[in-house]
Structures are given as structure tokens and as C-alpha cells.
């Protein structure tokens, strides 16, 4: 009996019972839009999914040895990395893959923003993607504590302390999250439950709905078109390219894990086990969270003790909540994209957001702060502002000449804040107030102009 004969019999047997030919027909007819945007943006969702699967697999292997407990968490991770054959490699793959997953998610989200793929009818695809990003940050935060080392202890102490600023239920929430008023081993038990059962179940459910939405509606065509000018067969052409990218990602992670088993050696991208957590030890200088939380860490540092009659950290967390809520609502705020028209303002808003996050992240790394125990904050701000000026010039030139962008209000405001703070010595918040106020004034002027029928700057005719 030939192999093809056997497989076609199996296919027929399945089709008679479950109607699998419909799925095969769907895969045969499915196309990925190409022709206007570079197609590589469409691979990022698949790459993120690949990293998630790698996380599940390496996490399962780590679970074979990891034991949560005051006397066992740190010790079992040390056992994994020093005694278990290839334990260091499995842990390193788990850590590198976690960072790659966040990078891939961030690029995927920003590419969705730039291509306006969130416009109707795909609003819920954006929202589920946004929630998946939030869950991924939750994975990073909960997993960080599990080795029960000093760094993890203080990162969790700071991260969970923010919860107390939530109105009405803040203290209750803090107690529930920590399993008590302070970070103790009870917190680790709760984070362990979150990391290995609650978050994975929620994530798998959300990924399923995200994928169903994408499959039902297809990938978004370029703005202004109802259908893409050309398409690429999903199977096998696109799927094979997906597979190739996954293999490249896997090889990249393995190479990095072999060369740098304990991370890149810069704050926020390293996972040396270090010293065991001691709830009665003071925090040590240079303590930093993971790189994707550095902007929050720095923003908390920039706020003064009190602002507008409220405590600084509370106002800071309110600002972060408003920014995150705005991000979630973009599909409804971008009214031009809803009408299938170009919306250069929202593309620039995305670039402005990147500049805003990058300036804070660079400052959190204390770049240019000298070798003293405490960095020179003014020197850090100056160095980071110069880096931002160089970077913004390159990005703006690229956008203007390559993509013919003409709207630079929000990216300009983010750069202005960096310049006023770093080069003119204004406080971060005052600089932000001036830049934000100018951006708001220009936005209002544009909206008023549009009401009167004048075209907005950057509007393609």
C-alpha cells in the first residue's frame, strides 16, 4: 500500500466523520494581502506565538525540578542551573525566549498601529492583542519572583506596592496579591499559581479568540482599499515562510543561550541568580526591574513627592493608567481610520510613544551618569537627550523620505520634552507639560480646521 494511498484514506475517514475537507478548502483559499506594505510585518504574530509555545515547553521542563518554598525556591533554581544536565540551558532558553516574546509582541503591536489594522471590523482583534500583551507582562512580573533572589524580591516589592494606589480597593488588592501586607514567601506561592496555571489558561483562551478573529476576518488590507491588490497563498507559501522564521528564532535563542546563559549583562536583561532573598536586607544600589518595566520605574522617579495636592506616585500611576487606557481605545479614537482614510496623526502618535518610552528607558539605565555610587541625574538626562536627538533625526528623515510622512506633532513633542529636560535643565514634568500642551494646542487647531473643511497637515491628497 502506497503512503499517499494510506494518507488519503485517513483523510477521507476523518472527512466522513468531521468534515475536515472544509478546513482544507479554507486553508487552500486563504490569502495574505501583499503589494503595498512589506509582508514581514505579518510574521510577527506567528513569531510571538512560537515564543509562547517555547515558553510553555521550557516552563514544563523547569517545573520538573522547581520547588516553590522559602527553603527550596532559590535552592531548586540553583540545582537546575548547576547540577541538572542542561538545566542551565533550559532556564536560559526560558529567559531569552521570554524577552524575545515581549520584543516580538511590542513590534507586532506597533506594526498593527502603523498599518491601521485595528480599524473596523477588527477592533476586538486589537483589544484581545492588547490584553495578551498585558498578560505577557504579568507572566514576566510573576516569573521574576520565582527564583526568590534579592533582585526579584525588591522588584516585586516595588511592583506590587503600586497596587495600593487603586482607589477604594487598593489595600485589599495589595493584601490579596501579596498574600499579606508585605512581600513574603506567601507572595511567591501566589505568583507561582499565577505563573503556571492562571495566566497560561487565560492566555491560551485569549490567543484562541485572537486567532479566530484573524481567521474569520482575514488579515487587514492597506488603508483605502477594500481588498489587497495582490495576495499570497497562506498554505503552503506563507506557512512555510512562517516555519522558516520560527526555525531562525529557535536557532537565535539557542545561540544566545549558549553564549550568554545568564543574559546580556545589562540591567533589566540579566538573570544571574545572585543572592537569596532576605526580607530583612536593605535594597542595594543599582537595583532595576526588567527592561520593559524600566519606563515605569523611571517615571516613578521623575514625579515629585506631591503634585496637585495628591501624592506623587498616585498621580504617576494615574497618568500611566490614562496612557494605557488611551492605547486600548485607539480603534475607536482613530476616526479617520474608521472611515478607511489615512490617519497620519495616529502613526505619529505611535512614533511619539516610542520616543517617550525610549527616553525614560535610557534614563533608567543611567547612561552617561558617571561611575559614582549615585549617578549624576543632570548628566544622564543630557546624554540621553542627545541620543534621542540623533535617533529622532534619523527616524524622521527615514519617515519623511522613505514613507512620505508629513505629520510630526507627537513625535516632535516627545523629542521636545527630552530636549527641554536634558539640554535646558527643565524638570521632566515641566518639560512634559510644555511639550504636551503644545501638542494638545496643535491637535485642537487641526480638529477645528477639519470641522471647517481645511485639510490637516500631512494629509495625503
Amino acid at each position, binding site marked *: 500500500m502506497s503512503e499517499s494511498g494510506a494518507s488519503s484514506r485517513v483523510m477521507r475517514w476523518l472527512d466522513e466523520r468531521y468534515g475536515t475537507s472544509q478546513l482544507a478548502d479554507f486553508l487552500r483559499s486563504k490569502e495574505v494581502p501583499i503589494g503595498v506594505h512589506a509582508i514581514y510585518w505579518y510574521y510577527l504574530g506567528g513569531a510571538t506565538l512560537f515564543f509562547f509555545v517555547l515558553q510553555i515547553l521550557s516552563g514544563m521542563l523547569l517545573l520538573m525540578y522547581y520547588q516553590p518554598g522559602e527553603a527550596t525556591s532559590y535552592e531548586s533554581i540553583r540545582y537546575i542551573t548547576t547540577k541538572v544536565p542542561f538545566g542551565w540551558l533550559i532556564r536560559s532558553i526560558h529567559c531569552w525566549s521570554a524577552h524575545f516574546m515581549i520584543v516580538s509582541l511590542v513590534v507586532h503591536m506597533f506594526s498593527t498601529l502603523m498599518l491601521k489594522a485595528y480599524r473596523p471590523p477588527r477592533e476586538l482583534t486589537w483589544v484581545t492583542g492588547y490584553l495578551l500583551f498585558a498578560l505577557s507582562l504579568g507572566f514576566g512580573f510573576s516569573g521574576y519572583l520565582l527564583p526568590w533572589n534579592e533582585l526579584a524580591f*525588591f522588584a516585586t*516589592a*516595588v511592583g*506590587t*506596592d*503600586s497596587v495600593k494606589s487603586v482607589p477604594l480597593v487598593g489595600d*485589599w488588592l495589595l*493584601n*490579596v496579591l*501579596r*498574600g*499579606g*501586607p*508585605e512581600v513574603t514567601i*506567601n507572595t511567591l506561592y501566589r505568583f507561582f499559581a499565577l505563573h503556571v496555571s492562571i495566566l497560561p489558561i487565560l492566555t491560551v483562551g485569549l490567543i484562541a479568540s485572537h486567532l479566530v478573529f484573524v481567521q474569520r476576518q482575514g488579515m487587514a488590507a492597506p488603508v483605502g482599499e477594500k481588498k489587497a491588490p495582490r495576495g499570497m497563498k497562506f498554505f503552503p507559501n506563507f506557512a512555510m515562510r512562517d516555519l522558516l522564521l520560527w526555525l531562525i528564532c529557535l536557532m537565535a535563542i539557542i545561540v544566545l543561550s549558549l553564549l550568554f546563559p545568564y543574559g546580556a549583562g545589562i540591567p533589566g536583561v540579566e538573570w544571574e541568580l545572585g543572592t537569596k532573598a532576605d*526580607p*530583612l*536586607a*536593605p*535594597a*542595594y*544600589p*543599582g*537595583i532595576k526591574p526588567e527592561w520593559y518595566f524600566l519606563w515605569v*520605574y523611571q517615571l*516613578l*522617579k*521623575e*514625579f*515629585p*513627592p*506631591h503634585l496637585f495636592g495628591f*501624592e*506623587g*506616585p498616585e498621580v504617576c500611576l494615574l497618568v500611566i493608567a490614562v496612557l494605557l487606557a488611551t492605547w486600548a481605545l485607539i480603534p475607536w479614537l482613530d476616526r479617520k481610520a474608521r472611515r478607511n482614510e489615512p490617519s497620519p496623526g495616529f502613526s505619529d502618535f505611535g512614533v511619539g510613544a516610542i520616543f517617550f518610552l525610549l527616553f525614560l528607558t535610557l534614563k533608567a539605565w543611567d547612561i552617561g551618569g558617571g561611575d559614582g555610587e*549615585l549617578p549624576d541625574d543632570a548628566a544622564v538626562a543630557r546624554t540621553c537627550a542627545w541620543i534621542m536627538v540623533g535617533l529622532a533625526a534619523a527616524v524622521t528623515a527615514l519617515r519623511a523620505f522613505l514613507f512620505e510622512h508629513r505629520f510630526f506633532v507627537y513625535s516632535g513633542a516627545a523629542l521636545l520634552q527630552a530636549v527641554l529636560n536634558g539640554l535646558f535643565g527643565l524638570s521632566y514634568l515641566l518639560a512634559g507639560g510644555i511639550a504636551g500642551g503644545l501638542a494638545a494646542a496643535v491637535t485642537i487647531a487641526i480638529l477645528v480646521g477639519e470641522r471647517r473643511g481645511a485639510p490637516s497637515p500631512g494629509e495625503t491628497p
Partner: protein
Amino acid sequence: MTDETHVPTTSRRGLLDLLLRLGVVAWLGSVLYPVISYLRPLPRQGPTGPVGLTRAEVAKVEREKFAIVPVGSKRVLVLEDAEGTIHALDARCTHEGCTVRFLPGEDLISCACHNAQFDLGGRVLSGPPPRPLPRYVAQRQDDGGIVVSVTPA
């Protein structure tokens, strides 16, 4: 005739719908209440009155000029200043809850997480903390021991 029979049917159905919805809400409440109660940790009882530091803790204060000790559910920073006076303050930074340290050479309390500094009275000297560190009562005993009580100083 039709209208007369239709009206009471609709209102009966409306009432049943309302009862069903209330039933669903009550059922959800009966499910969630035990779960929420289960998640809330039990309050940790601990002494708030005078607590004597262990020998190791006292030795640490003498050696490093400070120690962080648990008193009830609090972490307390016990330090000895340049004049030999013992101070006790809450070790939890009022900014984001990191554990503070005493810098003996500079007579300062510092939090390394966001570079905050406090004086020995707990007042904020620099950095983002919105409130001073709460001060507690600490006394050196005749036998050299140290007693701390987490009642405000």
C-alpha cells in the same frame, strides 16, 4: 381581547426574567464570596508592644550601626547614630515600599530603589517619597540590649 391577554403575559414574563436575573446575580455572589474570602490572607498577629532584639541583631547594630528587624507585621530599621543614640524607624520606604538602609558615615537613611534620602528623624531630604518614615520608640537597656516598640515615637 388579544391585547387584554397579551399584557399580563408580557408582565409575567418580565417578572420571571427579572427574578431569573436576580437569581443569576445571587448565584454569582454565592460563588464569588467564598473565593474572595479564601484569597484574602489571614491577618498576622504580632506584638506591637516592646520587643527585645536578639543577641545577633544587637551585635549587627553594633557592628554595622543598623539592623532591620521584624516587629509584628512591620520591618523596623534600628540604628545607632554617631553619638550612640538608638533610633527606630519604619524600614519600608514611603515611595514604593523598598527596604531602606542607614549610611553611618553620612548620618542618612537611603532607599536605593529610587535614590531617596531621609534624615534620622525620618524626614524626606531628597527623592520622590511623599511622606516621612514613621518613627518608633527604641531604648538601650542597662544590659546592652535594645527594646523596640512600634507605637509612634
